[in-house]
């Protein structure tokens, strides 16, 4: 039993570090370890991974007393879109064509990874978006963060609010209907569509993920999908990992974060497209 507890805590630690740096939930690390390496029933693996998302989000939250990295206004405004999307997605379970949506959202991830590779080859991580739109000004979405990797304050503007809002709705919809994590889509919505720098995008996605996951976690909690002996050590490992990861992220260069991010979303995208065609991998 002690071995299992230590393995779960270590898995959680790694998932927490990576999740907090990238702004994704860590479900893609936790689920395969549980199902493939430990032989846990998929029902409990899904329950554990939703707790993993919340632990990542909350662990990242407490790393700093005053979090300069995340954009609270962007988070709360977009959270409306994601949570409504998630509810509609959950309500349409069994009605909407899931294989088509798996292919659609998978293709979107593959396309975004291509987009990010182009961004990586350009200089865009050192050039901040200065474009503004009327809506983002009225909603006071523009922000500023202190980048510890380059030791300076970076003010930034937010553009294309309707585009980002729609993407967030889609991200929530996909996670509610298909049961996939929506962190990657959230980061893409802010980074690629709304022109926010990568680090605030990741930190803001982290906060939003926890809020979105809290709603679905109650369902899993009360229908008996959350096994305490799995979720408890995992959550503790993640809380420690995410607190560390969130501090580490501030010192990493955006380029480095992007280089870790790209293969992960490419993998997720390919996996989803295949699943849409009825092929299960991982």
């Amino acid at each position: 039993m002690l071995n299992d507890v230590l393995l779960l805590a270590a898995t959680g630690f790694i998932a927490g570090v990576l999740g907090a740096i990238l702004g994704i939930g860590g479900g893609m690390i936790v689920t395969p370890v549980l199902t493939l390496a430990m032989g846990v029933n998929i029902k409990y693996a899904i329950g554990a991974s939703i707790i993993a998302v919340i632990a990542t989000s909350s662990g990242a939250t407490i790393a700093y007393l005053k979090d300069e990295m995340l954009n609270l206004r962007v988070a709360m405004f977009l959270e409306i879109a994601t949570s409504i999307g998630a509810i509609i997605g959950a309500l349409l379970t069994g009605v909407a064509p899931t294989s088509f949506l798996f292919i659609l959202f998978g293709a979107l991830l593959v396309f975004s990874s291509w987009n990010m590779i182009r961004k990586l080859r350009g200089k865009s991580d050192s050039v901040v978006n200065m474009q503004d739109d009327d809506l983002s000004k009225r909603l006071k979405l523009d922000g500023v963060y202190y980048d510890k990797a380059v030791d300076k304050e970076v003010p930034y503007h937010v553009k294309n609010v309707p585009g980002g809002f729609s993407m967030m709705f889609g991200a929530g919809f996909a996670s509610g209907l298909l049961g996939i994590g929506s962190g990657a889509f959230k980061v893409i919505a802010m980074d690629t569509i709304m022109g926010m720098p990568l680090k605030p995008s990741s930190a803001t996605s982290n906060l939003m993920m926890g809020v979105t996951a809290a709603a679905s976690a109650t369902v899993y909690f009360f229908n008996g999908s959350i096994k305490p002996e799995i979720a408890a050590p995992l959550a503790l490992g993640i809380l420690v990992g995410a607190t560390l990861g969130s501090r580490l992220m501030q010192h990493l260069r955006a380029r480095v974060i992007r280089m870790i991010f790209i293969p992960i979303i490419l993998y997720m995208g390919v996996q989803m497209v295949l699943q849409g065609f009825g092929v299960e991998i991982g």
Partner: protein
Amino acid sequence: MKQSNETKAKEMHDVEILIGQILRIGVIISALVILFGLILLMLTQTSGYPGDVFPDKPSVILQGVIALKPFAVMMFGIFLLILTPVLRVVVSIYAFAKESDYLYVVITTIVLIILGVSMVVGYFGK
């Protein structure tokens, strides 16, 4: 005018630090409860429940917590962890109100209502 701006900025800073502390305490409490349950499990070598059974009903969990059953304490801690993002939203409403940013008080309240409704529906619609 400059004087009052500075007081305002100082006050906002204090509010943000206070919120940071509240969130930190919330997360740490949930982590400590989970850890306590896990240590109980290790020491007693029993979950407090027969076979593979684990508690998932509020009343059973609460009774188990009072009886210090390891699985019940762990589930209680996990439930507290699920509530920490809700706490995050609640204190954000307070922060926006302190900042007199009523647009965002409304936006964040909408988020809280959606969250509350889906949690209640989640509980009854399991």
